[in-house]
């Protein structure tokens, strides 16, 4: 699979990164080779294989339902870009 120049440009915009003209071809080739690898993986027959989300036989540890966290709003809001009356503030959202 080959990734087109326009697709790289769109991805760059969405990712908020700038890719200069000279490197676009290089990025396109390298991303295409990743996708080729995926294509190759997809040729493997997995009909008889059960899907797993983890390669190991381990399970999630659970926590007792007890409150151990305290109010640290001030500490968190000192490092927030913008707050107002205890709320984090963001540019106005419109539904």
């Amino acid at each position, binding site marked *: 699979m080959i990734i087109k120049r326009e697709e790289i440009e769109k991805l760059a915009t969405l990712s908020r990164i700038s890719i200069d003209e000279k490197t676009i071809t290089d990025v396109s080739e390298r991303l295409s080779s990743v996708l080729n690898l995926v294509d190759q993986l997809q040729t493997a027959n997995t009909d008889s294989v059960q*899907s797993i*989300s*983890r390669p190991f036989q*381990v*399970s*999630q*540890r*659970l*926590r*007792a*339902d*007890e*409150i*151990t*966290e305290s*109010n*640290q*709003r001030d500490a*968190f*809001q000192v490092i927030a870009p*913008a707050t*107002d*009356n*205890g*709320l*984090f*503030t*963001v*540019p*106005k*959202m419109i*539904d």
Partner: protein
Amino acid sequence: MNWETVIGLEVHVQLATKTKIFSAASTSFGAEPNTQACAIDLAMPGTLPVLNEQAVHYAVMFGLAIDAEIGQVSVFERKNYFYPDLPKGYQTTQLEKPIVGRGAVGIQLADGSTKSIRIHHAHLEEDAGKSVHEGDLPLGSSGVDLNRAGTPLIEIVSEPDMRSIEEAVAFAKKLHSIVTSIGICDGEMSQGSMRFDVNVSVRPMGSTELGTRTETKNLNSFKFMEEAIEKEVERQIDVIEDGGTIRQETRLYNGDTKVAKAMRSKEEANDYRYFPCPDLLPVIVSDDTIEALRRALPELPDARQARFVTQYALSLYDAGVLSSDASIASFFETVANSCGNPKLAANWAMGELSAALNNAGLGFADSPVSAEQLAEMIARIVDSSISGKMAKQVFEAMWQGEGNVDDIIDAKGLKQVSDSGALEKIVTDVLEANPAMVEDFVSSDENKRKKKLGGFMGQIMKVSKGQANPQQVNQILLQKLNELL
């Protein structure tokens, strides 16, 4: 053309845990903004989720209550989308392997018929925070309160098995009844503890193909749900009958303004890029845990209804109303057992008390008249100290906090006269004072006499200032009049 409505529901139920699903911050309602949002809830770099055991157990309990398959290995996934009230940039939820599989919920309809609504699955997930658009905010900004972020939810997804608004509302109420009865949710709709997304489509009656559906999101009361479905069904029928087609879209309904509008169309729907959450291992629920939870499962609404019918000789309908909610059921049982008259207990709980609580916007758990007080008052009706009419005055006084039953009866002079000597004298006096009425009664046909008794009763009650025991007066009156025939 006749149209058939097809409805499916997705119901978000807030689990009644003390802490969040992935952090040990409190979930209590109504705290100052962001005072219950810890580093994990805020998605601070380097934090990791640790799953709350109680949330897992509550989800399994729901599965057991609806006789569903329990996902003994369930997996959390990330649902990626961007919104300011979701600090991680994804919601941790379940998709491929939910904790609760297929099950069913039985509903009862007004005509007495029953129907089974299939549950597709139910999964565990975290709630998002709350966006604030109104109030004293800097110009051009919205506020974000992350106290609710990470509150544990189960999302219950039904099959499109409902065919009317009545069925949808009955299903929603039954779910409310189940989750409050087994104690996994506080059921406080006004605080968002249960929220409904309704999928609605219409099709020509008799058709077996499903029409295009729309989803109306986030309805937080049974009434709003009813209104939203009604409006959406009308809208879809209008569109189709005018030659148009229904677009698959997400809609919003504002219960205050009664306005519904399209939010976004599914064609431009987000790609959520689900994938298994690398921060959480598969959740394993052992057979032992499932069995222990099954044994500890509290009485379910259907079983409670059946028990009320046999134990208290209530009608199926009364038993249904009183068993629907754990707090109503326990209130009724306390009253019935301590006053010894379940029928009167049922009448008062469903009548006077329900009406007063509704007016005041209170639940049975916060009733100003306690179950013990109501039982004492009913006991006074049973032993003929007061009449049913007087009881209403006593109830009103108890509601206003004027003290206990006997003090109120004394203070208001409501004691019913049941002394037969005194009653006989009153009856005799009234008969002597009204010779014309007596004459009229004696000369009337037998079948008309019964009606004429009311006139005498009115007079007697007036003379006794409403304190005569009506049953006894009736007896004495009949006896005296029969002697004159």
